[in-house]
């Protein structure tokens, strides 16, 4: 018998044994009898009329089984790829929602848009045949940037979407903001770009589909963060397959970061194709293919203004953003730069009036959707940057201006002017902790040491809050969600007392198999090793919305906690019967049911045994078996946050920015496994640092070609780019989640870009630099220094 490993312990991750010994089971590891290979033919043009496709040479190529195009999709009457959110403008007019065919029809709208699916006996034969497909394109000018796309003379992606604007979205009290600006002693202004990112999970996307004529059932194995949602969207809305005839399996998945939380056209095409050819079909994306088809993230252009009184108190905040949607609306696309952005513009401050306008814009680029943080890093970046700008312009210390405006701990729950109500938090406590941990007092000494080597050193702060635990369904429904956002869990206690949990979230690197097992081990007193977590299979797991938005522990863990409580309640009834006591007198602790005040006990295993061998059992009032299920719909978002402090050194000769120190003190609520939380914070911070210093998806205006379409040109952060990080938690408990948890998957990515860029600006502020756009590449810094007001001391 192993040990209970409960909440707060840090066991090594259960799942790592199989990952580290090569025994993981990823989609591309799966082989099915008679499996054929599929490849997608993708548009090489950013924007073109699709005049015709000649399949003949491809069909005649050796080994080819089928070539499917948009015409075949239309002939079969299949649906458009659905968007899961419908937003409206201030007048309630719905967003423009043009169809997103799973294979292009009439037109292609980005490089990578799918034109055909070629199926052959082997991948080599499919690739060879794909080369022979003759696609007749009438190439049109592409528009890739949002500023360019909304110009009157810009190329139009859709005939019925004037100026390429999908929706002109608003939030907040515009009039109140205007009044406050009139009274302001100072107005800080900032124009910025939030750079486009590409998620780059380690495992490229892949799918296998199979149709079984005997049962009329389909199975889709896919690299997905939410198999049940894929089953619903694809089955009900695209392919017209009844839910009970469709199984979607997302086995081990090698990283998601949001990229795998959408229903992709590839999934629909391959499932449809498997029935047409009566063969299992497999597709595995190459890394290059991922660059032009995985949904991208971020890509905003923003003008922000902050109104302050003479003491530096924020009076009002106004933000106007153009957000890039790419060529079509992806599953969550329009929700990200609106509902997950505007409501976060209050930050940790008491700003009484906020107004936000977001124009959601189509361009000839890969569709943009959620990427780790999703909307909230963008909001935090705007706010935390402009706070620094205001402090600098008003001559107020950057920490002091934050303190003057921070929501005090006692003021929680705190209602912001932008919809959300923070339940708990202590931003001042996080700030104080971070100031000490980062040894800010001695920063001057370190800066002088850098200066003696000809380097400029800077310190940057980001005090931030985010909304996660997506999401309260009723609230989300009011904002335009077309589905629920609850989670479900089933706790199945076996006759011998071991436990299998079926949960609707999906583990693809987060350590759920460990964290969730700890929760069960803690609550039921069952050995950690006697708990298995099952996820990612619609035939095995009752239902679920999947993993994204830092929701797995917050929403899924809550469902698991509730289901576990139900097991205890039933166990007490059984124990009361066996111990011949009143149910009210039964206590459950450390895996034992006992009669209060006596030494009469029944172990958890004995109760489980009795439930499945009900010879001595209250069958008149209680069903046999010990298995409970719970659905949990959160009453509010959770609001993790904290303070990040970045310290950089800039080499003025080359423009190179080196991150030399990084400190994060985050409030993530109750910590189940501190090792896993630390890992999540590290990973999140690295992705934020990647955005701040390295990563940039660059398109060529006019041709729509992706210029940063490989790891040779798209710079991912690497170990030698990063210092050892100083990460700690300063937790207040969430008041409405069962365990007080807040979520930690995205905090690192949300807090860090602003901290890093604020540090870079601080390092260069003596030269008159007031803003640096991301990524702060050596070339960009050198250019700023060339244009700066003081000559650069190169020696």
């Amino acid at each position, binding site marked *: 018998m192993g040990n209970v490993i409960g909440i707060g312990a840090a066991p090594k991750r259960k799942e790592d044994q199989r990952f580290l010994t090569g025994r993981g089971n990823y989609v591309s590891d799966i082989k099915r009898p008679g499996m054929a290979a599929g490849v997608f033919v993708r548009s090489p043009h950013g924007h073109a009329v699709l005049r015709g496709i000649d399949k003949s040479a491809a069909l005649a190529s050796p080994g080819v089984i089928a070539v499917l195009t948009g015409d075949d999709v239309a002939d079969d009457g299949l649906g458009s790829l659905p968007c899961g959110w419908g937003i409206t403008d201030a007048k309630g007019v719905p967003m423009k929602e043009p169809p997103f065919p799973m294979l292009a029809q009439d037109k292609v709208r980005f490089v990578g848009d799918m034109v055909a699916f070629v199926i052959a006996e082997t991948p*080599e034969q499919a690739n060879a045949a794909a080369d022979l497909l003759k696609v007749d394109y009438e190439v049109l000018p592409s528009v890739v940037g949002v500023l360019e796309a909304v110009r009157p003379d810009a190329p139009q992606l859709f005939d019925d979407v004037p100026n390429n604007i999908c929706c002109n979205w608003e939030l907040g009290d515009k009039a109140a903001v205007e009044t406050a600006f009139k009274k302001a002693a100072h107005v800080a202004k900032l124009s910025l770009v939030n750079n486009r990112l590409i998620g780059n999970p380690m495992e490229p996307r892949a799918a296998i589909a199979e149709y079984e004529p005997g049962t009329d059932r389909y199975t889709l194995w896919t690299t997905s963060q939410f198999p049940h949602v894929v089953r619903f969207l694809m089955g009900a809305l695209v392919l017209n397959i009844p839910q009970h005839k469709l199984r979607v399996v997302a086995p081990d998945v090698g990283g998601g970061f949001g990229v795998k939380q959408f229903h992709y056209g590839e999934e629909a095409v391959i499932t449809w194709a498997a029935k047409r050819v009566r063969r299992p079909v497999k597709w595995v994306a190459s890394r290059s293919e991922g660059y032009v088809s995985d949904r991208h993230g971020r890509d905003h252009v923003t003008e922000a203004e902050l109104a302050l009184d003479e003491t530096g108190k924020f009076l009002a905040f106004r933000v106007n953003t153009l957000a890039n949607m790419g060529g079509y609306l992806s599953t969550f696309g329009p929700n990200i730069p609106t509902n997950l952005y505007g409501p976060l513009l209050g930050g940790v401050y008491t700003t009484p009036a906020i107004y936000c306008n977001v124009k959601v814009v189509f361009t000839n680029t890969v569709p943009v959707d959620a990427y780790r943080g999703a909307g909230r890093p963008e909001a935090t970046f705007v706010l935390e940057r402009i706070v620094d700008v205001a402090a600098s312009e008003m001559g107020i210390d950057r920490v002091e201006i934050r303190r003057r405006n921070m929501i005090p701990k006692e003021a929680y729950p705190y209602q912001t002017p932008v919809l959300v109500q923070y339940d708990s938090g202590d931003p001042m406590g996080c700030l104080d902790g971070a100031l000490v941990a980062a040894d800010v007092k001695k920063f001057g000494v370190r800066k002088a040491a850098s200066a003696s080597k000809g380097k400029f050193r800077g310190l940057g702060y980001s005090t931030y809050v985010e909304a996660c635990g997506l999401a309260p369904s009723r609230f989300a429904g009011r904002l335009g969600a077309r589905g629920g956002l609850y989670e479900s869990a089933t706790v199945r206690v076996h006759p011998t007392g071991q436990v299998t949990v079926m949960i609707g979230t999906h583990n693809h690197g987060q350590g759920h198999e460990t964290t969730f097992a700890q929760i069960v081990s803690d609550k039921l007193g069952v050995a950690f090793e006697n708990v298995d977590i099952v996820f990612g299979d619609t035939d095995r797991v009752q239902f679920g919305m999947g993993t994204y938005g830092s929701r797995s522990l917050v929403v899924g863990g809550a469902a698991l906690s509730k289901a576990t409580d139900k097991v205890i309640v039933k166990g007490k009834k059984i124990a009361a019967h066996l111990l011949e006591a009143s149910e009210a007198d039964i206590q459950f602790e450390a895996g034992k049911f006992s009669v209060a005040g006596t030494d009469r006990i029944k172990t958890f295993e004995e109760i489980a045994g009795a439930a499945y061998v009900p010879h001595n059992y209250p069958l008149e009032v209680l069903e046999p078996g010990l298995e409970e299920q719970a659905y949990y719909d959160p009453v509010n978002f959770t609001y993790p946050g904290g303070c990040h402090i970045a310290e950089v050194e800039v080499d003025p000769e080359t*423009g190179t920015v080196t991150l030399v120190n990084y400190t994060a003190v985050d409030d993530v609520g109750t910590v189940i496994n501190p090792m896993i939380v630390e890992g999540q914070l590290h990973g999140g911070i690295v992705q934020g640092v990647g955005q701040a210093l390295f990563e*940039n998806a660059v398109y060529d205006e006019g041709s729509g070609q992706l210029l940063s379409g490989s790891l*040779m*040109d798209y710079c991912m952060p690497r170990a030698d780019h990063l210092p050892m990080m100083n990460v700690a938690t300063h937790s207040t408990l969430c008041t409405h989640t069962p365990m007080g948890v807040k979520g930690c998957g995205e905090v690192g990515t949300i807090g860090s870009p602003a901290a890093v860029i604020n540090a870079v600006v601080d390092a260069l502020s003596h030269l008159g630099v007031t803003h640096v756009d991301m990524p702060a*590449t*050596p070339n960009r810094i*050198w*250019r700023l220094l060339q244009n700066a007001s003081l000559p650069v001391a190169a020696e």
Partner: protein
Amino acid sequence: MKPFAYHQPDQIPDAAKLLTSIEDSKLVAGGMTLIPTLKQRLASPSALVDLSKLGNLKGITDDGATITIGAMTPHAVVAASKLVQTKIPGLAALASMIGDPAVRSRGTIGGSVANNDPAADYPAGVLGLGATVITSKREIAADEFFLGLFETALDPSEIVTAIRFPVPVKAGYAKFKAPASRYALVGVFVAKFADGVRVAVTGAGPGVFRVPPMEAALSGNFDPSAIAAIKIDTDGLTSDIHAEADYRAHLVTVMAKRAVEAALS
């Protein structure tokens, strides 16, 4: 990857014959450029002629005033060679900065020089040291060997067998790595000989090139200060999403100074 024939000859003349007799055949040394190109289906040679079984193409020999490195010698071997570290430490340092450990273990000096990638490191070392490229047919001076973007003086059936480096008084290499690829955004090799200084630049333009004004200045005074004020003309330099031409020009001066510092240290 598309299908191709594979040959692994053990004699240089056999390799040369295969190369000329099979249309669209290609030599493969370490394969660090060619294999990714095949995998991306950007090239589809009919046959690969693998040089790994040819005798005497691996290893480093001390000839006194020169050292000779066999064409199939991997970068990691050059970087770790006590001989190179002692006689031309700048060259060992250059080899240690190429790619990552996997690339350094597979990639070869001959492959790098014959490929002449405009951002590769070895061309700067070969040109900066005024080395001699030894082939299956002849010897070619570095100044005559590199002809621009992926172009060399090699004829279609010629195989690089070794590179012979004169031992300088001092030499150093400084590289500003492209953040993503870790190729040279700008790399400068500086070598001081009894009769003068050579400065070779990689990464900045379509091919490796020398900088005569810096060579003249350093020949008079082998110190970073001698070239601090020398500006490089941006004409013909590369401009791309990673670096604009004027930034590359600036980096040439900075890296040249750092290469001199490295040589002096």
